[in-house]
């Protein structure tokens, strides 16, 4: 297994947000996590790379357990794409992508830039390499942040609602980059309500509610024949919300 999530618990004060979440991912798999707001989807993703350390439970990446000690090296294997991009404001697009290899992977300046240009090309942003983040559209910023993640050559990329801060006409360009990565065999764990991506690229949908996984299975099953009433009700809302 590339990723093993084992019985993750997390509380904020008295509120138990994650109540024992477990699942595995094989290399090359894409999984989409769905569920109502406040259900702990972001918290779960952040627990997986210890941006928020879990209270209980264990995370294994490629067989190695993530601990407080190996945090920084393990995070290089598990990239994170944020809802609000979080590109480094003071760096040009290409420098945003190059800084990881340069500072963390021991690349020389030239090699890091070469890699950065290559990754920008993968996300279709070569022509914006010299722009600063503030000069990019939201969709371009998100594609740049995906390139920044790719430049770490991670084993796994975590996406936390990568398109939800975008205007609807810009989500397409990000989703198509994600589709492409999935088809190239990148292992991806995506919190998203993008039905298009989920149907096309996901091997499995994980449906969460109240800090637990209540249903999981292939998209065909979840979308066409959900077992749980909760899942069915939620999907009704987002599918019709999308049409509206």
């Amino acid at each position, binding site marked *: 297994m590339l990723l093993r999530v084992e019985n993750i618990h997390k509380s904020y004060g008295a509120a138990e947000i994650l109540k024992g979440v477990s699942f595995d991912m094989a290399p090359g798999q894409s999984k989409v996590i769905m569920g109502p707001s406040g259900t702990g989807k972001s918290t779960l993703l952040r627990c997986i790379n210890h*941006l928020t350390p879990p209270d209980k439970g264990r995370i294994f990446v490629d067989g190695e357990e993530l601990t407080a000690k190996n945090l920084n090296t393990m995070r290089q294997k598990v990239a994170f794409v944020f809802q609000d991009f*979080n590109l*480094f*404001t*003071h760096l040009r697009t290409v420098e945003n992508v190059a800084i990881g290899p340069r500072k*963390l992977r021991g690349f020389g300046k030239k090699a890091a830039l070469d890699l950065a240009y290559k990754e920008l090309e993968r996300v279709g942003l070569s022509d914006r390499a010299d722009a*600063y983040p503030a000069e990019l559209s939201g969709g371009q910023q998100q594609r740049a942040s995906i390139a920044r993640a790719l430049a*770490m050559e991670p084993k796994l990329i975590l996406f936390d609602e990568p398109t939800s801060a975008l205007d609807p006409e810009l989500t397409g360009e990000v989703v198509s980059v994600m589709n492409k990565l999935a088809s190239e065999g990148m292992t991806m764990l995506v919190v998203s309500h993008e039905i298009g991506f989920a149907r096309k690229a996901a091997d499995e949908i994980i449906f969460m509610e109240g800090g637990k996984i209540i249903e999981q299975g292939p998209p065909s099953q979840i979308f066409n024949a959900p077992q749980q009433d909760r899942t069915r009700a939620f999907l009704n809302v987002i599918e019709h919300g999308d049409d509206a």
Partner: protein
Amino acid sequence: MSAWFDFAIEHLPYVLLGVPTTLGLWVSAMTIGAMLGLVLAWARIYGNRPIYVIATIYVEIFRGTPMLVQMFFIYLGLPEIGIVFDPLTAAVIAIGLNTAAYQAEYLRGAVRSVPMGQMTAARALGMGKFQGFVNIILPQALRRVIPQWSNEAILELKYTSIAYAIGVTEITARAEKIGYETFQFFEVFLLIAAIYVVMTSIVAQLLLLLEKKVSVPGL
């Protein structure tokens, strides 16, 4: 007016000889202040409890007492416990330690104004806290702090004049000496006021250039 020009031209060379002292004092003190200020800002933001408390006490003491008193303490007080400085060194230390407290606070404000997500993204890439600070937070905070830092630099350039009180022959001390020799205090202080204005204006312009040069869209 022309009488003043004659006076100014006659005494200018003697006063100008103090400019290197004034500027040297200023640059040294600002440098000490910047380096120590950076450490203090780091301690106040990321330090554990004891380190935070020490840095906070430092800032409160140096902001809460007059710089002249601090300088007298260093130059006149410390020799009693066997620590002796020459006047220029004492002035550099006093102004440096004082400006460090202010620079630390400005820098701290600038660091805190950098959105949290920047550090989160740095940590998510695999950077440690310190790496994230140096590579991501600091370059942004330094850009944001330039306007306040410029004010502080100009303030301190003028404050170097207090060094005259412990016998550093910078420009104010020289002006006072000419005053007592000629009894033309009006003329001589007008002259050095003009010199300070020229120096502060040049510094302000240079810092403005720097601000423009390093500015980045969106910061």
